[in-house]
């Protein structure tokens, strides 16, 4: 069943077109990846979908409804985002950060109920972070911060996650931990992914972006071939199925070998 349908999404920062007639679909339970070089528009496309930006033109349909006309509270109950958090000069505890995930469930006069606190507690427990609940978010390490944001998305209780390169500057152990965890949640996922090996490991389907356009789509096997990787990234590579994972494994080849 189709959950998200994006048609002809176009967005530009000033005169620079960052997303150019992008169309994509995400079905229920799918793990879909957006890949492409730096500045290819992955993040812009995602921001338009999670309403951080408003598209110049195009339509976005979520569960059959026009997303752009939906009240923000409603879209936030359907869609949760884990992104790269901007630096915040304000001090919140881990618990307070996670509790912010409850806000789309709250009306103007609602107060926090014991149930909200329970949900927040469970979310923290899920990620093994209960002991950090009262700590200051600002003083956590990068990996811990990322886990807090995932806990916040869990507290949001939506079954569709958008990942805006959350693992970008994390150690590989944290990256794996986070993707493994999200995979176990069995929710629908649309993620920008920097690392092609990660994309091959976790994604059911991939969209390749280049200069704001979707240039390819398909399963990792269809998309991640040496020719196509060369067309998009300009590097030579060897792609093979890894015996342990059964997934594709990409090795980039330095100039002296590929020449």
């Amino acid at each position, binding site marked *: 069943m189709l959950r998200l349908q994006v048609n002809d999404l176009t967005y530009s920062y000033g005169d620079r077109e960052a997303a150019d007639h992008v169309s994509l679909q995400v079905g229920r339970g799918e793990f879909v990846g957006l890949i492409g070089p730096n500045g290819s528009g992955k993040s812009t496309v995602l921001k338009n979908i999670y309403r951080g930006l408003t598209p110049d033109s195009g339509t976005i349909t979520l569960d059959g409804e026009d997303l752009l006309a939906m009240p923000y509270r409603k879209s936030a109950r359907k869609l949760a*985002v884990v*992104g790269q*958090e901007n630096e915040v*000069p*304000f001090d*919140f*505890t881990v618990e307070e950060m996670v509790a912010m*995930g409850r806000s789309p469930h709250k009306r103007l006069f609602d107060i926090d109920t014991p149930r909200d606190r329970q949900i927040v507690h469970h979310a923290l427990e899920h990620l093994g972070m209960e002991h950090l609940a009262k700590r*200051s978010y600002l003083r956590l390490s990068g990996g811990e911060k990322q886990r807090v944001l995932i806990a916040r998305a869990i507290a*949001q209780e939506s079954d569709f996650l958008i990942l805006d390169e959350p693992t970008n500057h994390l150690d590989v152990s944290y990256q794996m931990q986070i993707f493994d965890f999200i995979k176990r949640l069995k929710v629908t996922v649309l993620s920008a992914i920097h690392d092609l090996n990660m994309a091959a490991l976790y994604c059911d389907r991939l969209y390749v972006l280049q200069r704001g356009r979707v240039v390819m789509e398909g399963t990792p096997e269809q998309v991640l071939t040496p020719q196509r990787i060369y067309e998009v990234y300009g590097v030579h590579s060897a792609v093979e199925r890894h015996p342990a994972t059964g997934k594709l494994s990409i090795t980039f080849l330095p100039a002296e070998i590929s020449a």
Partner: protein
Amino acid sequence: MKMQFHGRRREPNMPLLLGLLAAAAVVTLVVATGLGPVSVSPATTARILLSRVPGLASHIPQTWEALDQNIVLGLRLPRVCLGMVVGASLAVCGVAMQALVRNNLADPFILGVSNGAAAFATLGMLFGAFSFLGTYSLSISAFIGSAATILCVYTLSRVRGRINITQLLLSGVAISMMMDGITSIIKLSAPNALGLHNAEFWMSGSLAGAKWAYLTLPLVVLLACMAVLLLNYRGLNLLLLGDESAGALGINVRRLQKLLVLVASLMAGTTIAVSGSIGFVGLMVPHFTRMLVGGDHKRVLPVSALLGGILVVWVDVAARLLIAPEELPVGILTAVVGGPIFIWMLKRSHREKG
């Protein structure tokens, strides 16, 4: 293991804290009302005040002199009450502006909002430009001035959809210099000298000459804005995370930002109209409040309001005592104290980033 405890904050006991602050506010009200070039003892002040409470008057024998009563009720009490309201408004206005620009260095004074309000208000004062608006013409012209300035500074400091702190502070400086210039031009071409003198004293920020009639509008605005902000405390918290995260967590960012511009301009405009520009209160108070209770606006808003009120009343006491019987404008004192604190915060914010 040492790091384990670093940055852990104990949950603030809010009922206790608010109770203490409310008690401190009451004590401040009584003690500060008695203090001035002519002092009235706190006990006498308290009795005079209590005698005005309906139903209590008959139980309190009148042991004080009529002069004391006049000073307390006619002169000091309105001034102290106005100080409370102005201080609370400025502090809450600072909180609102900081949420709007996502930076704890925002303050109506630093970003030139006070100067904008002053420019428009001077125009009204000296030329009667807004006199068709009636009794509240001064407040309304100050409101228009602050709204215009906030919008200007906000628009100028947005670079690619994000507030840039350097841009923010610099456009604040530029706008406030422009507004100062405009104010000077207005003053130089002023038609009468008396109005000019009044405008001068008013602009340096003073609570002297407070009347009960001054109190109504700022108090109503403060209560209304406080209610609006408290109802939206979740939105304010989320706004601190940035527009994108706030949108993704169910906040209509544009609408909330418009609301904040409106609320901040209303509070800045109405308080500046009655007290001139009293700087740095909106910077210092929210900062120390956050050190006390963390970043959650549910707690920051009421605590800031109380602390701001208490602070301004005491600074005003100092203003009328330091060179008594002469008076210092309050705004000068807050600037002398607030300036260094601003510099310290600026230093610190750079160190945290680097």
